[in-house]
């Protein structure tokens, strides 16, 4: 019985916090995305025209890089929530993991799609099986697997454990994605932002990119809170209905 009380006490506090945070994260997302989009697409200079540089296709960077960063970051969040659920039995763990993975799947898909459009013109191929692209495709499949497991059963608790294990196993893929361009010969270029020598992107392009990355991050937190609220409401509805049936 006490475990049950514990399970309800925490979500109530979380819901209060979510309600208070959501307007702020949503506003910050809107502001950052508006600034980043106008600056990046309209004002920032294009790259050198091909064959020396990427010309106007660098504008794809302003959506491709934030999507890729979020695809990794969201996965880390799913894994952290899963760890909290499986190790500490935190009642919110499953809810937060389940709420985040569809968002991560969208970001992974956008990474692949925008990268494909970019590569088609700059590399001369829509898709290649190099280590970077393949590991991001695997990340996308991990998200799909996680979504499938968390939604496969009517009782959300049943798939939850398997989903947790999948999420934790998939963590191995994150360093592979990040370092694939250093460990193997890939067609994808090495890191431009987080690298030992400092960013290799000119400040005029880095500034709008920074706003886009912040915007994507706040967007994720907003949608995550929203989806977690929905998940909690559904759980509570289910619990109430079950109790109604039992009595």
């Amino acid at each position, binding site marked *: 019985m006490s475990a049950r*009380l514990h399970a*309800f*006490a925490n979500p109530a506090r979380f819901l209060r916090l979510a309600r208070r945070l959501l307007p702020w994260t949503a506003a910050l997302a809107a502001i950052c995305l508006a600034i980043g989009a106008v600056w990046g*697409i*309209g004002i920032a200079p*294009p790259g050198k*025209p091909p064959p020396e540089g990427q*010309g*106007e*296709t660098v*504008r*794809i960077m*302003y*959506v*491709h890089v934030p*999507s890729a960063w979020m695809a990794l970051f969201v996965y880390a969040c799913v894994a952290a929530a899963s760890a909290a659920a499986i190790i500490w039995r935190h009642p919110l763990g499953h809810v937060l993991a389940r709420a985040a993975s*569809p*968002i991560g799947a*969208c970001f992974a*898909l*956008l990474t692949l*799609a*925008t990268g494909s*459009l*970019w590569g*088609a*013109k700059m590399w001369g191929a829509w898709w290649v099986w190099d280590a970077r692209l393949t590991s991001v495709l695997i990340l996308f499949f991990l998200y799909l697997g996680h979504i499938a497991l968390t939604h496969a059963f009517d009782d959300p608790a049943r798939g939850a454990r398997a989903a947790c294990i999948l999420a934790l196993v998939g963590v191995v893929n994150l360093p592979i994605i990040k370092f694939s361009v250093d460990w193997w010969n890939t067609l994808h270029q090495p890191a431009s932002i987080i690298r030992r020598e400092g960013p290799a992107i000119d400040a005029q392009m880095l500034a709008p990119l920074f706003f886009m990355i912040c915007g994507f991050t706040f*967007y994720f937190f*907003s*949608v995550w809170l*929203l*989806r977690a*609220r*929905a*998940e909690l*409401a*559904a759980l*509570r*509805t289910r619990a*109430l*209905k079950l*109790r*109604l049936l039992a009595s």
Partner: protein
Amino acid sequence: MDGIGRFLEMGGYAAYVWPALGLTALVLAVLLIASVRNARRREAELAQLEAELGRGDEG
């Protein structure tokens, strides 16, 4: 060519740049709208059920 036309042309890469930007905007918008709708529906469902059950069922 005027400024808008040149902007839309994206240095000859319009067919690659605009779909990338458009797809991103579309996916993020659809995900947001779906999430807002779903949250509203689930919370309304819960509120209705709680109202039907009346008080005394807290916690």
